[in-house]
């Protein structure tokens, strides 16, 4: 017999995978949040990003393009990108305000067609060693490392942020249930709890804790735009391409 999650966890634990998630079609869909151009990802600052996604692997897609990533000219790349490679690795790409780079890929992969938790933490600094990626609760090994960046990220010259695509394509195919950023490095215990419970809220980090930089509510119905949660920083998120929402599980 398969027990409901509420029975396993007890009635006091919320299932953060309940309800709808945004279904990106991999061709036309992305979300455009009006994130600030400066001060959002700083060299001195810390962060932890959590994504709960159910991807359809097979093509490289952008989970986040903060800045304007791409084009044939490398000098056109700006900001911070979290990329899901065709075979499931996470590729992290960062260019600071003086175009220095920090790049790496994970060795471990996400699984296709099932929910996956990705957590990326950053300590003070911009070198590759300041970032750690956890896939489904397990720290991933980095490969293909470039580690030159030292400065803040400033995208004021190329203001463009997208969730689920880069500025000129590479749209995400699959469902997105959580996109959370807190402004500190989550502890080992919090990473374990957030991975097991599918949200930083599942690690006891409440929306009104003051820790959140971004927390998006994807439990919507088709045609609506996602919103940021109450008690977290308010941003306008515009779903482009006709938003579709489906049950996550």
């Amino acid at each position: 017999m398969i027990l409901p999650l509420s029975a396993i966890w007890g009635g006091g634990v919320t299932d953060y995978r309940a309800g709808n998630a945004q279904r990106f079609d991999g061709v036309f869909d992305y979300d455009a949040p009006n994130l600030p151009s400066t001060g959002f990802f700083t060299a001195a600052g810390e962060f932890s990003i959590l994504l709960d996604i159910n991807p359809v692997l097979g093509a490289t897609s952008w989970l986040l393009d903060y800045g304007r990533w791409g084009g044939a000219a490398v000098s056109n790349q700006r900001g911070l990108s979290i990329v899901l490679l065709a075979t499931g690795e996470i590729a992290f790409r960062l260019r600071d305000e003086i175009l220095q780079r920090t790049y790496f890929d994970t060795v471990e992969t996400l699984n296709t067609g099932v929910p996956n938790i990705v957590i990326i933490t950053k300590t003070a600094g911009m070198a590759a060693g300041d970032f750690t990626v956890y896939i489904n609760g397990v720290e991933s090994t980095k490969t293909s490392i470039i580690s030159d960046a030292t400065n803040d990220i400033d995208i004021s010259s190329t203001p463009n942020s997208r969730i689920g695509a880069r500025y000129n394509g590479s749209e995400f195919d699959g469902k997105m249930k959580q996109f959370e950023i807190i402004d500190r490095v989550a502890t080992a215990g919090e990473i374990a709890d957030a991975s097991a419970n599918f949200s930083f809220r599942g690690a006891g980090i409440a929306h009104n804790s003051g820790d959140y930089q971004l927390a998006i509510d994807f439990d919507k119905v088709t045609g609506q735009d996602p919103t940021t949660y109450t008690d977290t920083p308010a941003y306008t998120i515009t779903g482009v391409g006709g938003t579709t929402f489906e049950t996550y599980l």
Partner: protein
Amino acid sequence: MEYTYILAPHTAHNYAVVLQAVAGFPDLISNRQVGRATPKSALDVLDDESGLLVAESNEQYIYVKADTAELEQSGLLAYVQDYQLFNIDNQPKSTFWLNVQ
């Protein structure tokens, strides 16, 4: 709301009837939901992240994401030649570059 994806050769005729349908049914296709598509080839030139830089094929197609209910009301498909229909789960991503920039 449900969407239907239409792949059709990029001919003057098909382009004209899609334009006409969009003009007559403003809710048929939202912003950015019409793109060019081209067949994939092993000889395509790709960027570092496997995105398309230059397609080997010269064949051009139109790829449209249409509101299914509006599509039926518009009667567009009676006029589009040699089209194929897809849904969100079976799009021809393995054989075509869709929504080429």
